[in-house]
């Protein structure tokens, strides 16, 4: 018995690996105890189950995505600080090499798939149905499934560090390094399985929001009257639809190699590792657009609102979104010009990469022209947008440098590249997500986040960003390669690396200020009593904050692009207030425990595949089948919300 426990502890819990593991164990244990204690003490278990775990309300699902994204931002950020601490000085052994590999792998994977993706889905869910005048997304039940698949995939990925070991071959997970022969153990399986599970959920979200935006718009809202954020979500969802199948195939094939002895990407038996790299980037490059297009949508809303002007060049904004959607699918080879595909192929992809900069440039100028002669208010969302414009311009410039195929042989996989893509993804996506969070926060929770603390966070994060990443461009030119564990002193990289590490810590401090800001504002933040705290332009601001769960008591009839702004200008806002006689009962989708249970089943199936415990995997997949069949045989999944109840709710918010 004792022997068995010790064996389990050594093999799966890795108790011999030292203080980093013990520290993580203790932290996880304390967090779990804290959550369980708080829920029990406050008697919130039932509330948690009824209001959140079984909900199909897009607004609540959006909030859950947001909470997860911020937690994962923290986890990825801690990884980043560990990496930067390790690299702060030459010949450093703060981490051992194996842990260093695991940490840069989880940093990249978490930041892209478990931070950026849920963050954009949070904004999808919170804003889109309200912007287009809908009562929910097209498929609320599927929406809940997507969330829980993401949640449990992220959970599976995160426990890897203390349960069997994390993946350690980089977030791109290239074979043949990731084949069984070179990388034994469950780490890579964790990567493949958890990304597959969240990938299925992501496809569901893509389908859901295309159907929502194309089919659920309020009467009168033609496509050319759809707010630009919703257009951006449509563009992003289309890219999800075209790109994610390729990722799922790449992951599944590599998993077959590792679990069932197939030879897709091995060197032996005729496999071809470059096929993985192509499939991976057929998804991987469009993935950049999946996240950044949504950020572009946020900037369009923010710039128009805080310049008190209609967006400049609406139609060219839509056209450039669609152009990026198409061209973005045709640039993937620029991630591996060094494959040696030949001058013709490399030229095509170099040109397409530069071409995608053109519609992006159009958008940049349209934002600037919207601000031109506008009455600009420097609120937090606007500050992050302005910071984005500077940061993304530099990212674009260095991107064009990397796009020149011959020059790329010099930059490839150097710190120049690392600095470039952090500039694009932090400056483009993270700034946009934070702008969106600040912008819609009052709509979600009914209060504003404190501006003063937010400005501290903004300046610390921004200054920290440049201190961290500008030296890395130089380090790249000096020959420092990405994913290096440590470096000798005589190469002269020490000073710049040390500066970069200081920058990373300043960014970490900035994040802490955001945490403080949220906590402070829960108690002292300015309450939103009008529902239109920013004096904004689109339909969601015509509703009270937070929005009642049925969204619109009466569906509005849309006649203008910036409907709410037009009505305010003409003094006709009363038209969007429901008249008591117009209110009819509404069919609302029922809550369901099944999406949550499906997530649990997928989690155990995933665990089964990671450790090749096939009995567990088979049982869990059986659970999946039972959940799906139970759904199929469900006759009624809606209930009526009576007109009286809606009238009461509307009267409470003073709208009736």
């Amino acid at each position: 018995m004792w022997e068995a426990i010790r064996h389990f502890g050594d093999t799966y819990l890795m108790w011999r690996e030292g203080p980093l593991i013990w520290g993580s164990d203790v932290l996880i244990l304390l967090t779990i105890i804290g959550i369980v204690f708080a829920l029990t003490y406050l008697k919130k278990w039932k509330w948690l189950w009824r209001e959140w775990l079984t909900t199909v309300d897009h607004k609540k699902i959006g909030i859950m995505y947001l909470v997860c994204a911020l937690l994962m931002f923290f986890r990825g950020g801690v990884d980043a600080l560990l990496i930067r601490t390790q690299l702060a000085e030459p010949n450093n052994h703060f981490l051992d090499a194996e842990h260093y590999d695991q940490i840069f792998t989880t940093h990249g994977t978490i930041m892209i798939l478990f931070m950026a993706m849920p963050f954009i889905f949070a904004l999808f869910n919170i804003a889109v149905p309200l912007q287009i005048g809908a009562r929910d997304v097209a498929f609320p039940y599927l929406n809940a499934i997507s969330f829980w698949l993401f949640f449990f995939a992220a959970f599976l990925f995160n426990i890897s560090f203390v349960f069997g070991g994390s993946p350690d071959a980089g977030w791109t997970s290239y074979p043949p390094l990731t084949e069984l022969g070179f990388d034994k153990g469950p780490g890579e399986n964790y990567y493949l399985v958890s990304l597959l599970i969240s990938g299925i959920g992501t496809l569901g979200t893509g389908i859901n929001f295309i159907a929502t935006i194309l089919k659920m718009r309020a009467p009168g809202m033609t496509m050319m009257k759809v707010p630009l954020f919703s257009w951006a979500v449509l563009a992003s969802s289309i890219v999800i639809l075209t790109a994610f199948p390729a990722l799922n195939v790449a992951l599944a094939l590599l998993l077959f190699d590792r679990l069932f002895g197939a030879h897709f990407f091995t060197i032996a038996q005729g496999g071809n590792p470059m096929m993985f790299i192509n499939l991976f980037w057929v998804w991987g490059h469009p993935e950049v657009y999946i996240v950044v297009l949504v950020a572009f949508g946020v900037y369009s809303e923010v710039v128009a609102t805080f310049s008190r002007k209609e967006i400049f060049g609406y139609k060219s904004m839509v056209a450039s979104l669609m152009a990026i959607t198409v061209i973005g699918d045709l640039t993937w080879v620029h991630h591996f010009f060094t494959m040696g595909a030949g001058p013709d192929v490399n030229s095509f992809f170099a040109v397409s990469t530069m071409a995608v900069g053109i519609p992006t440039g159009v958008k940049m100028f349209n934002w600037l022209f919207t601000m031109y002669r506008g009455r600009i208010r420097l609120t937090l969302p606007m500050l992050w947008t302005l910071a984005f414009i500077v940061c993304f311009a530099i990212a674009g410039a260095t991107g064009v440098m990397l796009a020149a195929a011959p020059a790329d042989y010099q930059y490839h996989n150097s710190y120049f590249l690392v600095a470039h893509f952090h500039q694009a993804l932090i400056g483009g996506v993270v700034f946009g997500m934070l702008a969106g969070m600040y912008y819609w926060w009052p709509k979600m929770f009914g209060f504003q986040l404190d501006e003063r603390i937010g400005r501290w966070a903004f300046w610390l994060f921004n200054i920290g960003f440049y201190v961290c990443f500008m030296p890395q461009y130089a380090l790249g030119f000096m020959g420092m390669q990405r994913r290096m564990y440590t470096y000798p002193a005589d190469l002269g990289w020490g000073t710049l690396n040390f500066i970069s590490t200081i920058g990373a810590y300043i960014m970490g401090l900035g994040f802490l200020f955001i945490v403080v800001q949220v906590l402070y504002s829960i108690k002292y933040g300015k309450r939103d009593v009008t529902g239109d705290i920013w004096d904004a332009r689109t339909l969601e601001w015509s509703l009270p904050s937070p929005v009642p769960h049925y969204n619109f008591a009466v569906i509005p009839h849309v006649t203008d692009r910036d409907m709410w702004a037009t009505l305010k200008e003409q003094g006709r806002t009363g038209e969007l207030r429901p008249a008591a006689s117009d209110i009819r009962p509404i069919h609302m989708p029922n809550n369901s425990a099944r999406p949550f249970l499906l997530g649990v089943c997928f989690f155990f199936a995933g665990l089964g595949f990671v450790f090749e415990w096939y009995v567990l995997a088979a049982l869990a997949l059986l659970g999946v089948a039972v959940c799906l069949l139970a759904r199929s045989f469900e006759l009624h999944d809606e209930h009526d919300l009576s007109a009286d109840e809606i009238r009461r709710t509307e009267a409470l918010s003073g709208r009736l």
Partner: protein
Amino acid sequence: MSIMTLERPRAHEDAEAKTIEYSQPSESLKIFGFWLFLATDMLLFACLFATYVLLHTHTAGGPTARTLFDVPGFEAETFILLTSSFTGGIATYEMQHQRSKSVAVWLFITILLGLAFIGLEVQEFIHDVHIGATMSTSAFLSAFFTLVGTHGCHVSLGIVWMAAILIQVLRWGITPQTARKVFNVGLYWHFLDVVWVFIFTVVYLTGMVM
């Protein structure tokens, strides 16, 4: 006023009478969603086809397509699956005329044909494994088993799904909800048939000719 009534009625849709599966906005929305799913599934197969085309000559000294493929076997599979697509089509047609018994009969025949197809495919795979042609023999065989096997898994899932809908049609008759389900599973079945036509051409026919 359901959350689904928001779909704007289009002029041409009002003009012509809708068939039952499209008669309710919430159900027609689900058909639209299912088309989007089929698009993702098509791309999934596209990636598997690309992988197969890249690797189909990488036999690593193991069996080649020509020595492995059994012409009568894959021809029988093809005829059975194409016929099942036809019977599935009749089920959809009968559904639109609200004849629930007839729908059940045609779905049942389609399921039987699907089972026959799967039976033959399993037999083919078992035979291959017996002569030493497994997934780990060569890159060609990894790609072959994965592509054809993924299609087979889709058909198997389709059979289970169709059986569930068959029971629902018998229990509840043809309602807008069950009609939509019959329609969607029909779309799925035809889609798998189209994929098989490509497998027949790209894998089996090309394998025998090259």
